[in-house]
């Protein structure tokens, strides 16, 4: 068995099978774990340490947010995918260009199309019989469709997006040689060229047309931001939807409560996000400092496991328990500090609508093969295979 305190590897199946258990054991035995892998990586598991790092942009750079064997090739303060890979002060400039498109009021108009899409997906899925995969047959398709609509890229490119994302997030640096024509940046260069030829009312055209003091954004900035919106919005959201359905499949009392009292959903969504937060971010130490008393050196990787922070008993009462109507819930599923997930309102909307529509059509269901449930490796955690049996 691996020694998670001194030699962890979050990209292995062994990690994926038991990440919450590993976090809990580390928090009580070695709250700031270390591994020599990836050139040196730290793993804090206490809420206080995760929060302190997320709020400290002086000592920790966001130049790369995915721990891998290679180092970022687009320098700070912009990084490859602004604003998530950007540091102050450039970060605020890049983020403010996007904030209005993702405000709760701007996002609200997507509720009805998302609901119609979820509902149609379920009907189609159930035609194949009462045993279905709720992850690959349902959850996976929802954010792809919504993001494609928002960005203005063809929804039938969904399989390509998922391939890019899998390479980047689940097996960083392990994919081997990739045909350049099948690379995310090559694909996005095509998307941008197409929008330059025929502009339309979507986020890609918005970014291309933007002028700040008469100057357009650089191609690197435009392509990096589109890459961010594509990568960040898909695996994360289907992970949250899948994990929520995994929970509900095993908890008839929570299903019954949500069906009987739909107003509890506001709290349930945040509790799903707390207990099954999909996203672990990362930083690179910019200047020697310490994490919870543990010295860390410039250039070290630091994982920021928001899901582990969300299970810290110092920050949450009875943290390992799912409380469908939890009233005190300062969860950090969308991060903390200036990099708070830009798409949080969209993700929350998709999660709520996806669960509501599922329960409306499938109020009663169970795992058909619990051993076949497989959780993803890497920094985005969710079920990648979720066989369920529809009971009513």
């Amino acid at each position, binding site marked *: 068995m691996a020694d998670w305190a001194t030699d962890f590897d979050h990209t292995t199946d062994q990690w994926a099978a038991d990440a919450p258990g590993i976090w809990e054991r580390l928090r009580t035995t070695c709250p700031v774990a270390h591994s020599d892998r990836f050139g040196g990586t730290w793993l804090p598991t206490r809420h206080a340490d995760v929060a302190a790092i997320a709020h400290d942009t002086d000592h920790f750079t966001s130049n790369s947010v995915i721990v891998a064997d290679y180092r970022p090739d687009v320098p700070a303060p912009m990084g490859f995918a602004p604003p998530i890979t950007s540091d102050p002060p450039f970060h605020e400039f890049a983020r403010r260009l996007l904030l209005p498109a993702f405000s709760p009021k701007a996002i609200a108009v997507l509720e009805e199309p998302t609901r119609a899409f979820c509902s149609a997906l379920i009907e189609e899925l159930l035609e194949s019989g009462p045993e279905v995969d709720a992850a690959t047959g349902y959850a996976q398709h929802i954010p792809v469709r919504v993001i494609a609509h928002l960005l203005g890229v063809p929804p039938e490119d969904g399989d390509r997006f998922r391939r890019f994302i899998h390479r980047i997030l689940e097996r960083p640096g392990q994919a081997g040689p990739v045909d350049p024509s099948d690379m995310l940046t090559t694909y996005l260069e095509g998307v941008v060229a197409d929008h330059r030829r025929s502009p339309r009312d979507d986020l890609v055209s918005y970014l291309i047309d933007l002028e700040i003091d008469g100057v357009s954004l650089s191609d690197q900035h435009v392509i990096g931001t589109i890459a961010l919106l594509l990568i960040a919005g898909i695996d994360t959201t289907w992970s949250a939807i899948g994990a929520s359905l995994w929970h509900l499949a095993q908890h008839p009392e929570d299903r019954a409560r949500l069906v009987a009292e739909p107003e509890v959903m506001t709290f349930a969504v945040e509790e799903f996000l707390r207990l099954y937060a999909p996203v672990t971010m990362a930083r690179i130490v910019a200047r020697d400092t310490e994490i919870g008393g543990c010295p860390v050196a410039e250039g070290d990787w630091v994982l920021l496991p928001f899901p582990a922070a969300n299970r810290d008993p110092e920050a949450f009462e009875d943290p390992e328990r799912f409380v469908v109507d939890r*009233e005190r819930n300062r*969860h950090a599923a969308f991060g*903390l*500090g200036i990099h708070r997930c830009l798409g949080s309102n969209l993700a929350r909307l998709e999660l709520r609508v996806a669960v509501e529509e599922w329960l409306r059509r499938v109020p009663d269901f169970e795992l058909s093969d619990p051993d076949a449930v497989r959780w993803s490796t890497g920094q985005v955690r969710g079920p990648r295979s979720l066989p369920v049996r529809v009971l009513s």
Partner: protein
Amino acid sequence: MVRIVFDRAACVGHNRCYLLAPALFDVDDEGYAVPLVEGELPAELEAAARLAADNCPEFAITIEGGDA
């Protein structure tokens, strides 16, 4: 007297207050909270204010006075 205090500098736009206590918080075009009530809280909004405070990940909302 129960008062609500909002720390604008701490708000990063999680929008939890706007969802849970829309009578107390609106959001601006960039998604940052805009307090609709500042200082003394009407009694009927106390519960909503505590809910907003208890769910702000950045501890940007504080309730002063009262029993909790």
